[in-house]
């Protein structure tokens, strides 16, 4: 039993590493933050393409998001994915992880047969790491998260799962959902020719589904289908004096020593 179909879940995110604080006002500088394919998801896609090389499996990427999220689907096709599915609908808006995973699970079911679902461990805008496991649960398949290496033999996988102080060797058969971390591989660059083909839809399949295309209960979608709600959001508060000590190295280190002594830190 060989692996035939691999599904990869990807998300478009703002590059949160680019966000800086305005040193004068202390507020966030949000302008001009580029949108990117979520880094962990890129590692998931790379692994799918490596497995495609070994097994000849078909790789389908799915993203849920607004119209502009199509950009990362084109990037994924240019990296070597065979098919891309964009699920987008106003009804999906405001979804928490449970409603998101329900929606993505419904799209996976609609695609039909699959052997491996790959996702990034977490997205850099939410950092929850919840959507992968929640999809696995709703699909009724096993999961391995924090995956740092994959060996495949027919429908049997041997996977290394990272821990804080080591790793587990895990054996599992397909169907299975895996979530990827950075250590798993080094993502390839998109192929320029393929990028062009993908833009022009040549030999590549890019489909768009809304809520009506999926078998879903609408009350489980979006904000309405989300058990958690944002009660409030605010900027992290920081209250410190920021006293600059001295103007020469000599003077500064002497003052620092005094301050630390006053606070009984040395």
């Amino acid at each position, binding site marked *: 039993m060989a692996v035939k179909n691999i599904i990869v879940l990807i998300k478009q995110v703002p590059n*949160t*590493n680019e*966000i*800086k*604080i305005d*040193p004068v006002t202390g507020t*966030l500088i949000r302008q001009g933050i580029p949108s990117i394919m979520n880094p962990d998801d890129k590692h998931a896609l790379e692994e799918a393409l490596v497995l495609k090389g070994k097994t000849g499996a078909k790789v389908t990427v799915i993203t849920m998001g607004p119209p502009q999220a199509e950009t990362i689907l084109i990037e994924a096709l240019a990296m070597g994915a065979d098919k891309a599915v964009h699920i987008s609908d106003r009804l999906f808006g405001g979804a928490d*992880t*449970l409603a998101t995973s329900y929606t993505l699970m419904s799209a996976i079911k609609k695609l039909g047969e699959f052997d491996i679902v790959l996702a990034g461990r977490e997205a*850099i*805008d939410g*950092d*929850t*790491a*919840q959507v*992968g*496991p*929640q999809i696995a*649960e*709703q699909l009724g398949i*096993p*999961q391995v*998260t*924090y995956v740092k290496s994959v060996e495949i033999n027919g429908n049997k996988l041997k996977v290394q*799962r990272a*821990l*804080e*102080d*080591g*790793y587990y*060797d*895990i*054996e*599992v*058969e397909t169907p*299975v959902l895996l979530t990827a971390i950075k250590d798993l591989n080094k993502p390839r660059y998109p192929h320029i020719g393929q990028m062009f083909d993908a833009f022009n839809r040549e030999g590549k399949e890019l489909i768009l589904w809304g809520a009506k295309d999926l078998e879903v209960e609408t009350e489980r979608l979006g904000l309405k289908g989300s*058990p*958690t*709600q*944002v*009660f*409030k*959001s*605010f*900027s*992290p508060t920081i209250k*410190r*004096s*920021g*006293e*600059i*000590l*001295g103007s020469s*190295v000599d003077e*500064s*280190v002497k003052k*620092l*020593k005094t301050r*630390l002594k006053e606070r009984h*830190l040395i």
Partner: protein
Amino acid sequence: MALTDYKGIMVYAEQREGELQNVALELLGEGKKLAAKLGVELSALVLGKDVKKLSDKLFEYGAEKVYFVEDKILDKYSTEAYTDAFTAVIEAKKPEIVMIGATTIGRDLAPRVSARLKTGLTADCTSLDIDTEKRLILQTRPAFGGNVMATIICPNHRPQMSTVRPGVMEKSAPEKGKKGVLEEVKVTFSDIKAKVVKIVKEAKKQVSLGDAKIIVSGGRGSGSQKGFNLVKELAKALGGEVGASRAAVEAGYVGKEHQVGQTGQTVKPELYIACGISGAIQHLAGMQNARTIIAINKDPNAAIFKLCDFGIVGDLNEVIPAFIEELKKA
């Protein structure tokens, strides 16, 4: 579901190879405060093969009741078996709030459990409080790479579930010999499909920055391995641990186990010295709760100077050696 059927706070007491994880005790410390506000009981849940004996410690750290499930299927961690056990206990005991440590295991297990129960789960909380009127837990967490804090509620589903970052909450002082109610819960397991066949501990043990009193960290501004070595020397001179920003780890100056920040460890030492660290929110998310923060940076406009208690504007290659010399003087 009737929300009022659910009562009490349950802490998931994660153990690995029979050893309770620190975060379990931290959650009991926090759980005790929250349970007092709600006027309810604090329980702990421990799952494993031979884990009943861990209850003594859980009682000492604040649990009034300890539920345990023992089965050989729970010997090594398995998402499936642990989910079966965890959900069975929640369904039987109906806690209104469930807290889980956001370890790599907690972050695997909690979403699976919440999806099975079709309830809300808030990830990686860094502060918790209670709205006593509505009996809701207010779960605050960093989002957007730590750039925004969001307080999340779960008004219409039970239990309200949170994972909590290790190293953020405080353990309460243990009450030696304190006892409580110990109860075994029997669970029927389905077959497990993903099997852990080997546990590998890596020699490169996680640096315990979480417990460190003094941390000296280096960032991109260390400029070189030589610069970062000065950071290490200062840490040694002060009897502290070595920390690093993500940029320093990515530059290869030091291993990832030293990384402090949103994608690294969260620390709260008495003293944090940031050398050549600009003060990106990503880093601040992991160290802003330090008691005293010192910044050493040659860029007078670096954001870190707004966020420190004391700053020295200067090249760390000059400042650190001079400071080490100064420390040697009586």
